[in-house]
């Protein structure tokens, strides 16, 4: 495996969008599942699958809070996820040779 390989976990367009959206938040901020779904335009089931993959790699963290009868899931990028996205964009830029 060469070092400049593109992280396959991030490279999938939908996950790239998820990670990029979360990365745009200031450190420590979270995004609710519904808001993220609105922004990305995926079905809930689809989004959950991608989020689970990212969470298994520790790229994102999710938290479920119960507020009375309503439970809200929020997601955030972890430090590891932010680093992975940084490495990914760098690899992509290197690959494109500053085009």
């Amino acid at each position, binding site marked *: 495996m*060469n070092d400049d*390989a*593109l992280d396959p976990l991030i*490279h999938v*367009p939908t996950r*790239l*969008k998820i990670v*990029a*959206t979360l*990365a*745009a*938040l*200031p*450190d*420590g*901020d979270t995004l609710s599942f519904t808001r993220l*779904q*609105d*922004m*990305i*335009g*995926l*079905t*809930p089931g689809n989004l959950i699958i991608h989020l689970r993959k990212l969470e298994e790699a520790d790229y994102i963290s999710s938290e479920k809070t119960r507020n009375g009868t309503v439970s809200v899931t929020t997601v955030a990028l972890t430090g590891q996820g*932010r*680093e992975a*996205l*940084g490495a990914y*964009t*760098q690899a*992509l*830029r290197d*690959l*494109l*040779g500053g*085009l």
Partner: protein
Amino acid sequence: MSTGAPDPLIHDPERLRIVASLAALPDGDALTVTRLQDMTGLPPGSPICRLRELGTAGYVRTEITGGHRAQATVALTRLGRAALDRYTAMLRHLPPAARQDHQPPAPDARAGDADRDAAAAALGEHFARGRLTLDELCVRLDATLTATTHGELSQAAQDLPDLTLFLAQVSLPPRKRARPGHKTGKPPGHRPWQHHHG
């Protein structure tokens, strides 16, 4: 084409490598397939398959030259170059850990309606996130909407984290939210009547 989605033909890692190598050539120059394989470091046979896919889309042009020791050369077409340009433009939407081209405007630079609106939207987001009380929001909105310079705008948000990048993503064309049990069968943003446009 829906906005923000990377061109799947270019996004594939192997094809991306090939297109990037070909794009580095001066316009009109071609590479032999063997040389391309060396440059990209792809496994043997792989470039041929990827070139066929790119060729079908009209992104690359393959020519056989020479007599008894024929050689295949490839070059990026105008179409391929345009597709790569669109692809790299998409990269600019990535909020990058290390991007140095973001320069805040000078404090005494005049602010326009778009700047005031963006700053007001950021305040609204901070209020929704519980960083501001309703009273504070009102005071700051007043200050923001009457600000004439970028300095005054940043004054109203100086103790708040920067949401510019995030709001830039929110303001992308809104997409219809998928409803449970409702299958559209088409990607969001797909408009059949615009199919032959551009």
